[in-house]
């Protein structure tokens, strides 16, 4: 029962001839708030696509909730907010309610219909992210930060145990970024959702995260936010350069 939510063992991945992930090993324990940091092009989005099964590793093993990814079927346990969430089909006039409902499509399953219970759940989730007043507005008419919340609601509505967010605060103004981290904090603490967050916002990560992974093709750091802070103070220049193996698994 106490399998890590995600475990990756010796993962290698290359696009054509461009190796992007080399020997990546890491685990996300249940209940963690894990942050992934690292330079652009460091392979963070690729790592997530591997976890989501959108890409297959060239080598290595991925397990989700203890199961090999090839056998894993329970995708509604994983919620995902893409880096591209703000490049959705803008010509599509969907209301906030309709967009969040889409998060239930796969969970409800084929040949079954959306019921009044589902409707209730959708409205609750819209409230949970603070968008209750906008439920029947078209998504295209909202601000970037509001749209981001809607996409988080879409990911949350199926009651995932793991929520993955890829640079969710890009294009969101500072005040809303603060609210956004408060929301994540609440999801993690109150609703016990395991979080995996990719971000450049290392300051926020050191406040909220329980663990940080630094990725630049290889994992150059893995540890607690405090360890990460100590590291950045000394070795800031080396960080975004070539990989360095300094601090390692602090706990355990």
């Amino acid at each position: 029962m106490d399998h890590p939510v995600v475990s990756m063992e010796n993962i290698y991945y290359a696009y054509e001839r461009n190796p992007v992930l080399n020997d990546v090993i890491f685990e996300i324990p249940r209940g963690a708030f894990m942050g992934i940091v690292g330079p652009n092009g460091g392979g963070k989005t690729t790592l997530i696509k591997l976890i989501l099964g959108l890409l297959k590793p060239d080598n290595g093993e991925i397990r989700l909730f203890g199961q090999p990814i090839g056998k894993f079927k329970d995708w509604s346990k994983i919620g995902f907010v893409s880096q591209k969430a703000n490049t959705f089909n803008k010509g599509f006039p969907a209301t906030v309610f309709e967009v969040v409902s889409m998060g239930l499509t796969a969970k409800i399953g084929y040949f079954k219909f959306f019921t009044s219970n589902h409707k209730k759940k959708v409205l609750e989730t819209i409230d949970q992210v603070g968008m209750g007043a906008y439920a029947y507005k078209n998504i295209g008419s909202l601000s970037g930060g509001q749209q981001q919340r809607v996409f988080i609601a879409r990911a949350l509505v199926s009651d995932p145990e793991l929520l993955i967010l890829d640079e969710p605060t890009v294009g969101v103004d500072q005040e809303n970024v603060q609210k956004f981290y408060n929301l994540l904090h609440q999801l993690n603490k109150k609703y016990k959702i395991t979080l995996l967050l990719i971000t450049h916002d290392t300051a926020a990560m050191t406040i909220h995260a329980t663990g940080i992974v630094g990725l630049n093709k290889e994992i150059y750091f893995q540890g607690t936010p405090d360890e990460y802070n100590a590291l950045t103070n000394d070795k800031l220049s080396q960080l975004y350069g070539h990989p360095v193996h300094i601090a390692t698994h602090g706990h355990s």
Partner: protein
Amino acid sequence: MLADFLEYNFLRHTFLTGILIGVIAPLLGTFIVVRRLSLIADALSHVTLAGIAFGLFMDKKLALGIAPLYSGMGFSVLGSIFIEKLRGVYKAYQEIAIPIILSGGVGLSVIFIALADGFNTELFNYLFGSVSAVSQTDFYSILGISIVIILVIRLFYKELVTLSFDEEHAVVSGIHAKRIHLLFIVLTALVIAASIRVVGVLLVSALMTLPVAASMRIARGFKQMILFSIVFGEVAVIIGLISGYYFSIPPGGTIVVVSIAILLVTLGMERFSFRRKVHGTD
């Protein structure tokens, strides 16, 4: 005028068929427009023409009574499956499927038309639609197809919407994108084949897209967009059929002109409500 449609059998069947396609063409059209597949619908209608020409040829030369509705449908469905294959092969250039299918359809049409000894009125009716071409059997076939289409859309509505809005999210959440795409394009092929008797090959994609273009300007949410599209589609078909009959014009032409008029009215309404809003704030 309307009395004639109720009185004469051949008109009544056209009229009832018009009512059916006024529902199914904009219904599928809504998904086609949001997925930016309007040109694919056009390409498929030309493949359907090849199928119809094939049916006419078989009938004339070999006296094999395949109803052109069915041969058109057969070609259209095969064409749609081929389009999905091409889109899979040319992932980075998905629109290349359009000229391939379109030119293939026109090429085959030309061959079958020539083999069947050239143009005739019947073919002309298929190009631009006709108020008097729908037989009782055609009507019942199209009724059957329409029921199937509406049921399948109802059954897969949530998957179709989810996939059309954000394909990556749909795939991650475990929806079988390929199968749903295939199902959708086959339905599109059926709608096109069913609509051709009334609106004609050249204008069928207009009936799938113009009402949606109008509805898009004023609808709030996707469901409402479907609803308005169908209402506009029905208005266009009914006014188009009656005026086509009255002025002896192929209904494809009148239906499209009415659709464009509706589009212009919605654009005007939008401007009007925008002005009012601006006015209200000062």
